[in-house]
């Protein structure tokens, strides 16, 4: 299913509130912060939605692009450049669940890679999950020519249960 009416554009300050809502809706089934909360309880007195929204409240919008369909923001991608290593990093990116499977994520990714090339990057790097929720994301990166570099595990511990 090719998404024909999707357009990709640079995020601007007027998008910030939309982006805070978009990140929560698009990350709901793929965020580590939610699983962390389900396992360890509320962190720092705030829900996972608040921590995710914070990312968009503070991000430099210069490094954010938005996918729009019929005037609605349905996906976004953020990235970072590193002039020393010339390795660009594809950071947070997601598409609303009801708009998935139409190539919108792929279009966002292609756009980020082009922007990185224009900025002089020689490599692009991206991290994603290894569980089933991220299988479509992994397939997208592999289709785009990404190859696995290394794998890592994030561990957590409740210090109140310190038995050391």
């Amino acid at each position, binding site marked *: 299913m090719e998404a024909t009416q999707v357009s990709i554009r640079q995020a601007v300050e007027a998008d910030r509130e939309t982006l805070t809502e978009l990140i929560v809706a698009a990350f709901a089934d793929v965020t580590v912060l939610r699983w962390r909360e389900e396992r*360890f309880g509320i962190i720092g007195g705030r829900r996972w939605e608040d921590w995710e929204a914070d990312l968009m409240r503070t991000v430099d919008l210069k490094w954010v692009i938005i996918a729009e369909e019929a005037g609605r923001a349905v996906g976004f991608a953020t990235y970072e450049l590193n002039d020393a290593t010339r390795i660009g990093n594809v950071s947070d990116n997601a598409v609303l669940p009801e708009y998935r499977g139409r190539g919108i994520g792929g279009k966002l990714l292609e756009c980020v890679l082009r922007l990185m090339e224009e900025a002089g990057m020689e490599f692009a790097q991206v991290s994603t999950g290894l569980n089933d929720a991220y299988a479509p994301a992994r397939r997208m990166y592999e289709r785009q020519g990404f190859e696995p570099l290394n794998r890592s595990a*994030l561990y*957590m511990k409740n210090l109140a249960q*310190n038995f050391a």
Partner: protein
Amino acid sequence: MAKQDAKVTIRRAVEADRATLIKLIVRAYEDVRERQSGEVLARIWNDWKANHVCSIDVDRVILAELAGKEVGFASYRVNAATGIGIVDDNAVLPEYRGRGIGAQLLVRILQLMEDAGMEFAQVSTGLEISYMSARRMYERQGFVPLHRSVTYIKKLTQNAG
């Protein structure tokens, strides 16, 4: 932890330790093969050495000493907003591994985090074979896996040819 070494002392790093600490970090890390193999990892490692090692905040570092020699280090960060302490870079010199020195460093870090009012501790480590003893150490200390991830890399043809 077969050969628990009683002579190991753990102490906080001070500014005067900086030169020793830099040498220690580089030596303790450079044998981790994944950091050196391939152009991309070499680039990341060199960039990390240049930008991170020399500017490391010694107030967030502890050292393991054996007979007056620094043989291991561990660093950490605290986040008052989340109440999560992050176990940062930590390593023991290759020839001093397998004696529980890393675990002694970790236990002290967890104590320092609790003292700083942290509720949780978090740590990331590799899934490759060379990190297996690190993973076991965290699991023994009560850490549970929250997420496993993969990092992908792609050459951008326009600039890399």
